[in-house]
């Protein structure tokens, strides 16, 4: 039993361990890797993915999937940029609002029309992207620099990038919701056995509804950061974000079939994948080998392979890691 527990602990903390190893490797091998500039710029950039992955994590815990997050972020960035002349908060609200709209439609498609999440969100991926292009007239949309909107993405608070703060707050809230509210436990229950959850008298549809809504809102928030960090709403950004988010969630040990998941490990998964990119860039700078982008994708694929195989091995020996309180 203790051995089994140990292995199942390794399964859930394996990603944290891998993250530490990767950071250690980078620190030992490259100058400036753990420099303040690099740390803040990695965090600033990856905060967008962290937000999207958080939403994805909740969706996946209910046994669903949200392929629309990337386009939703793009749409959010365009809407936020268009609204930014009215003030930073208006821009923020508009971007998040656009994300919530997409989330709302996803939620209705999945819970009311009973369309499979994969298909529903695939359709919304197209629709959100089309809407973003239409609103932006096929071009990047400048944000207003006067309204202070760009502070959201570009400034620091207590010496730390504001986007990183936003992500941290989102994860703390996410963690509390998951572990200390009935809705959060309901999310896991729905993913574990939807029919049973319904028969147990829990509002399964409402839970799923909320989850898609939240995912949309978080993607919209990521879009706001995208617009303000780069000074423009970008209708063609966000391609492949959904797969990055899914990979991060899975690397974090959340089962795609739903019912089991961890917010903290998802964050670790995001950082792991994000820092891997950074390490590859630094490796290129070493001048030892010049990794072409092609080799980089092969390496990223192999890395994912190793992580998921390790995780499969761990979880087949221990039972599924279930957090206890």
């Amino acid at each position, binding site marked *: 039993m203790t051995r089994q527990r140990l292995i199942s602990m390794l399964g859930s903390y394996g990603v944290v361990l891998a993250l530490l190893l990767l950071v250690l490797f980078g620190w030992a091998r490259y100058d400036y890797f753990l420099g303040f500039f690099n740390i803040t710029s990695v965090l600033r950039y990856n905060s967008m993915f962290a937000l999207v992955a958080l939403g994805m994590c909740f969706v996946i815990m209910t046994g669903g999937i949200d392929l629309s997050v990337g386009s939703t972020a793009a749409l959010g960035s365009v809407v936020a940029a268009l609204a930014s002349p009215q003030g930073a908060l208006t821009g923020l609200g508009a971007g998040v609002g656009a994300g919530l709209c997409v989330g709302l439609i996803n939620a209705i498609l999945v819970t009311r029309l*009973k369309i499979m999440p994969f298909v529903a969100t695939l359709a919304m991926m197209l629709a959100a992207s089309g809407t973003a292009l239409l609103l932006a007239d096929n071009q990047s949309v400048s944000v207003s620099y006067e309204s202070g909107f760009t502070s959201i993405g570009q400034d620091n608070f207590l010496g730390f990038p504001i986007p990183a703060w936003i992500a941290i707050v989102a994860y703390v809230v996410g963690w509390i919701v998951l572990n200390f509210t009935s809705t959060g436990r309901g999310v896991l229950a729905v993913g574990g056995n939807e029919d049973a959850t319904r028969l147990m008298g829990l509002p399964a549809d409402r839970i799923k509804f909320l989850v898609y809504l939240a995912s949309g809102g978080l993607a919209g928030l990521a879009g706001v950061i995208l617009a303000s960090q780069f000074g423009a709403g970008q209708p063609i950004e966000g391609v492949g974000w959904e797969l990055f988010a899914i990979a991060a969630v899975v690397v974090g040990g959340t089962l795609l079939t739903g019912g089991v998941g961890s917010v903290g490990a998802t964050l670790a998964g995001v950082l792991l994948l994000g820092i891997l990119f950074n390490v590859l860039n630094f490796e290129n700078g070493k001048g030892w080998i010049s990794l072409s982008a092609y*080799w980089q994708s092969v390496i990223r*694929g192999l890395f994912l392979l190793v992580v998921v195989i390790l995780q499969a091995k761990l979880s087949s020996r221990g039972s599924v890691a279930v957090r206890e309180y």
Partner: protein
Amino acid sequence: MARYGTLIALALLILFNFAFTRNFATMQTLNVNLTQVCTIVIVAVGMTLVIATGGIDLSVGSLMAISGALAPMIFLGKIVPIDNVALAVAAAMIIAVGVAGLFGLFNGWLIARFRIQPIVATLVLFIAGRGIAQVLTNGNLQTFRIPQFQWIGLGRLFGIPVQVVLMVLLVIAAAWMLKRTVFGRQIIAIGGNERAAELSGIAVAKVKLIVYAISGFCAGIAGLVVIAINSSSDANLVGMGMELDAIAAVAVGGTLLSGGKATIIGTLLGAMTIQLVRYTLLANGVPDAAALVVKAGIIVLAVWIQQHGRRA
């Protein structure tokens, strides 16, 4: 009833086009649409089988790129020079499709042996597969003029484009296999209840291996067709986004993504619907951005009609 949802959508689209699209009622229109839908259908046939077992295959686009990158390398003699053109082309086709099939087998191995969830297992090759194709060719375009090879993309059999014949054969074979053979029924049983299937003596791992290999094999064929038509192979772009097109075709065709149920004919109809939507939007000059929104709406509508029909 389930099947009629797609049929109705298809019929409505055709009617719309007769009324509003210029120059629609011609053989050439049929020709254009059939040749364009071929690759999606070929890939979607494999995808239908995978989905029937309760899985999914995101790697098909990358496998198309690998097969599309390998074949020209072989028949252009970049690996080993082969003098006889026919021999070179034959070797190229067999090896390219075979390698794609092997990669599919690899997907199946990850899924059956390690019990990795299909979406993640195939995500590995989705990412790495295109990289492999790019590394093979160094990302360079390969252009060629080899009529013997391009026959599969440009040639005709009894006046019908070869690729269309290929597609029809694959569809018939797969539909028959699913309905009439032990293997087909085992696929459905695994998707319906894997443990029950295993306890009934079905070699679940083996069936999955084969199914993913078939999916890779189909992707390999599709990759060859694409490069044959274009007389060039671009590892960066061949099969880009194909996984989503194929999955959409399967879903619109009425196969449940949760597995345990499959219709190949439905998939054919689903792919045709999506193709015709694309044609309609293009031919009527709908701006690309708006076209995305319309396409989304039609996918949702078709799937919704499907499910409504099923419940009634």
